[in-house]
C-alpha cells in the first residue's frame, strides 16, 4: 500500500481531531452562551447534547454513505457542511438557531469523521495506528481553548475544517475522475457490542466530568473562562502521559479496566473535594486524563481491530462515544441544577447564621445584611461572590477586622455550597464510569477479545 502525502495525513488527523474534540472545546463556551443567550443550564446543555445526539444517530448511516459515494467526496462535503454550520453557530443570536446549526454541524461532522476513518488505514499504514491516532486526536484537540468569545470557538472551526478539506479534495477528485473509490466493498462484520457499550459508559463519565468541572470552575467558583480553560487542560495534558503509558502494556483489557478505574477514581475525587481550591482539582483531573487515554484507545482499538470495513465499525464507535456523551450530560444536568438551587439556599442560610452570630456591631450588621441581600438578588439564582457587598470596609480598625472575618466566613459558606452542589453529580458520573467494568468483564467471560 503506497504511503499517502504528508499534507493529506495531517489533514485527516486534523479533520478527526476537529470533530471529535468539538465537545471538549465547546463546553468551555457554555457559561458564556448561558449568560449571553439568557437561557438555563438545562437549555445550554443542549448545545452539547444536540451535536452529540445527531453524531450518535448519523455516524453509521454516514459511514455507509461514505462507502457508497466514496470517502474522499464524503469527507470533503462533510467538512464543508461542518464549516458552514460553524459559521451559522457563530452568527446565532438565539438558542434555537444555535441548536439547529449544531445539528447540521454534527451531520457534517459525522460524514467527515467516518469517511476519514475509511481513508486512515490506507494513508497511515495500519489499522492500529489509525485507531491510536483517532483516540488521541480528541485529547489533543482539547488543548484548544476559547480566546475572545464563544463565537470565536465556532469561527475557529471554519478555517480549520476548510484547511482539512483541501488535501482531501485530491482524493475526491480522483474518485470523481476514475469512478474508483478506495474502499473495498466487502461484507460488514458485526460490531463489537461489549467494547462499544463500555465505550458509551466511559464516554458518559468523561463528558459529565468535563461538563461539570467547567461549570464548577466558572459558575461555582467564579473563575474566568480563560482560567477555567487552562485548569481543565490538565486533563488532556495528562491524557498524553496516559497514551505513552498505554503503549507499554499490550493487553487492551488491562488498559481498558485500569483506565476505567482511574476515570472513576478521579471523578470520585471531584465528588469529594475538601476545599474550593483549583489545586485540589488537579490530582483528580490527572487520574481522569491518564484513565481516558488508556480506556478510550483500548476500547477503540478493540472495537475496530480486525474488523472491516473501518468506516462502518468506526461509525459504531463514534456512535457509542457520542451516545455516551448525551447520556452523561442528560443524566447529571437535572441532578446538579436541582442541587445547585438547594445548596444556594443552604449556603445563604448558613451565611445568614454567620452574619447573625458575628461580632460586628448591630448597626453595621444591619447595613451589611441589606447590601448582601442586594448582591444575592443581583446574581439571580447563582452562587455569588460576596466581596463587593463589603465595600467600603469600616474605618474603625477593630470593626474592620470583624467585618473582614465575617466576609471570609460568609464566602466560605457560599464556596462550600457551590462545591457541594456538584458532588452528587460527580459521584453519579463515577458510578456510570464504573459500570463500564461490567461489559469489560463480560467480554472476558465470553472470551471475546478485549
Amino acid at each position, binding site marked *: 500500500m503506497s504511503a499517502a502525502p504528508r499534507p493529506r495525513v495531517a489533514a485527516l488527523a486534523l479533520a478527526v481531531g476537529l470533530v471529535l474534540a468539538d465537545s471538549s472545546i465547546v463546553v468551555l463556551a457554555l457559561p458564556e452562551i448561558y449568560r449571553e443567550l439568557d437561557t438555563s443550564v438545562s437549555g445550554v446543555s443542549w448545545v452539547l447534547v444536540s451535536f452529540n445526539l445527531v453524531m450518535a444517530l448519523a455516524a453509521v448511516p454516514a459511514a455507509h454513505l461514505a462507502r457508497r459515494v466514496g470517502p474522499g467526496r464524503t469527507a470533503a462535503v462533510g467538512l464543508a457542511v461542518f464549516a458552514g454550520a460553524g459559521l451559522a453557530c457563530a452568527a446565532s443570536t438565539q438558542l434555537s438557531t444555535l441548536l439547529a446549526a449544531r445539528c447540521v454541524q454534527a451531520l457534517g461532522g459525522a460524514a467527515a469523521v467516518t469517511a476519514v476513518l475509511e481513508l486512515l488505514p490506507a494513508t497511515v499504514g495500519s489499522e492500529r495506528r489509525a485507531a491510536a491516532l483517532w483516540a488521541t486526536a480528541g485529547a489533543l484537540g482539547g488543548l484548544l481553548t476559547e480566546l475572545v468569545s464563544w463565537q470565536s470557538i465556532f469561527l475557529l472551526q471554519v478555517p480549520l475544517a476548510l484547511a482539512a478539506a483541501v488535501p482531501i479534495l485530491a482524493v475526491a477528485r480522483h474518485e470523481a475522475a476514475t469512478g474508483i473509490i478506495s474502499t473495498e466493498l466487502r461484507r460488514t462484520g458485526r460490531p463489537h457490542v461489549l467494547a462499544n457499550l463500555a465505550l458509551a459508559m466511559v464516554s458518559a463519565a468523561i463528558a459529565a466530568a468535563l461538563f461539570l468541572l467547567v461549570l464548577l470552575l466558572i459558575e461555582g467558583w467564579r473563575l474566568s473562562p480563560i482560567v477555567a480553560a487552562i485548569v481543565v487542560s490538565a486533563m488532556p495534558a495528562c491524557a498524553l502521559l496516559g497514551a505513552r*503509558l498505554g503503549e*507499554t*502494556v*499490550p*493487553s487492551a*483489557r*488491562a*488498559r481498558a*479496566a*485500569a*483506565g476505567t*478505574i*482511574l476515570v*472513576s*477514581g*478521579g471523578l*470520585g*475525587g471531584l*465528588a*469529594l*473535594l*475538601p*476545599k474550593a481550591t483549583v489545586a*485540589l482539582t488537579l*490530582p*483528580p483531573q490527572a*487520574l481522569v486524563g491518564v*484513565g481516558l487515554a*488508556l480506556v478510550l484507545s483500548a476500547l477503540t482499538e478493540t472495537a475496530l481491530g480486525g474488523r472491516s470495513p473501518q468506516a462502518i465499525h468506526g461509525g459504531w464507535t463514534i456512535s457509542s462515544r457520542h451516545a455516551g456523551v448525551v447520556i452523561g450530560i442528560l443524566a447529571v444536568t437535572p441532578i446538579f441544577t436541582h442541587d445547585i438551587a438547594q*445548596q444556594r439556599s*443552604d*449556603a*445563604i*442560610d*448558613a*451565611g*445568614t*447564621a*454567620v452574619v*447573625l*452570630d458575628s461580632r460586628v*456591631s*448591630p*448597626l453595621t*450588621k*444591619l447595613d451589611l*445584611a*441589606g447590601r448582601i*441581600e442586594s448582591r444575592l438578588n443581583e446574581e439571580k439564582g447563582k452562587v455569588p461572590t460576596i466581596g463587593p457587598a463589603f465595600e467600603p470596609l469600616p474605618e474603625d480598625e477593630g470593626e474592620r477586622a470583624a467585618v473582614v472575618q465575617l466576609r471570609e466566613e460568609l464566602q466560605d*459558606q457560599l464556596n*462550600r*455550597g457551590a*462545591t*457541594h452542589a456538584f458532588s452528587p453529580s460527580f459521584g453519579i458520573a463515577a458510578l456510570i464510569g464504573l459500570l463500564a467494568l461490567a461489559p469489560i468483564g463480560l467480554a472476558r467471560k465470553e472470551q471475546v477479545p478485549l
Partner: protein
Amino acid sequence: MSAARRAQVLLGGSIVAALVLVGVYLAAGGASYAPAKTQDPCKARAWRSPEGLAQIAEQFSLSALDGAACKLGVSREALAQALASPEARERFAQRYHLSDAQIARAVRAGLLRAVDDAERAGSLSPLIAGPLRETLRGIDLEEAIELIDDAESLLGKVEGILGPAQELLEGFLP
C-alpha cells in the same frame, strides 16, 4: 518485565491510585465540605454577655428570632431573611402559607422567649423581666406586624421597648 506482569502492575497501580485519592480527600473532610447546618431554633442557644443597650437589644432580637422561628417551624435564618424587607416577608408568607397574624403571634411568642432567655442567662433581672413580659403581652397584632416589618425596625422597636427602662436596666446590668 513480561507483558502479563505489566498489565497486572497497571491494573494494581490504577486501583491503588484511585483508592488513595478518594481516601485522602475523604480524610481531608471531602464528605462534609458543605454549608454549615442551621441550628434548631427550638433548642436553647448560648447567651452572649452583651455590653450596652444596643448589644442587649441585638441579643434580645436574636433570641426573639429563635423563639418566633421555633413557633413557626422554620429556621432562625429563614425568618431573619424574611424580616429583611416587606417583599421578603411576603415571599416567606407565601412559601410557608402563613398569614401576617400568624407571623405576628410567633414574633410576640419569640419576644417572650427572649425575656425568658435573658433572665435565665442573668442578663435581665427578674424585677425587669416581669413588667417587660406584661408589656410584650400587651402588644397588639398590628404593632407586632409593624415590629416585624424589617430587621432594623425590629432592633429599633426592641430598643424602644427597653428604652424607657434604660436607667433601671443599666442599674441591673451584670
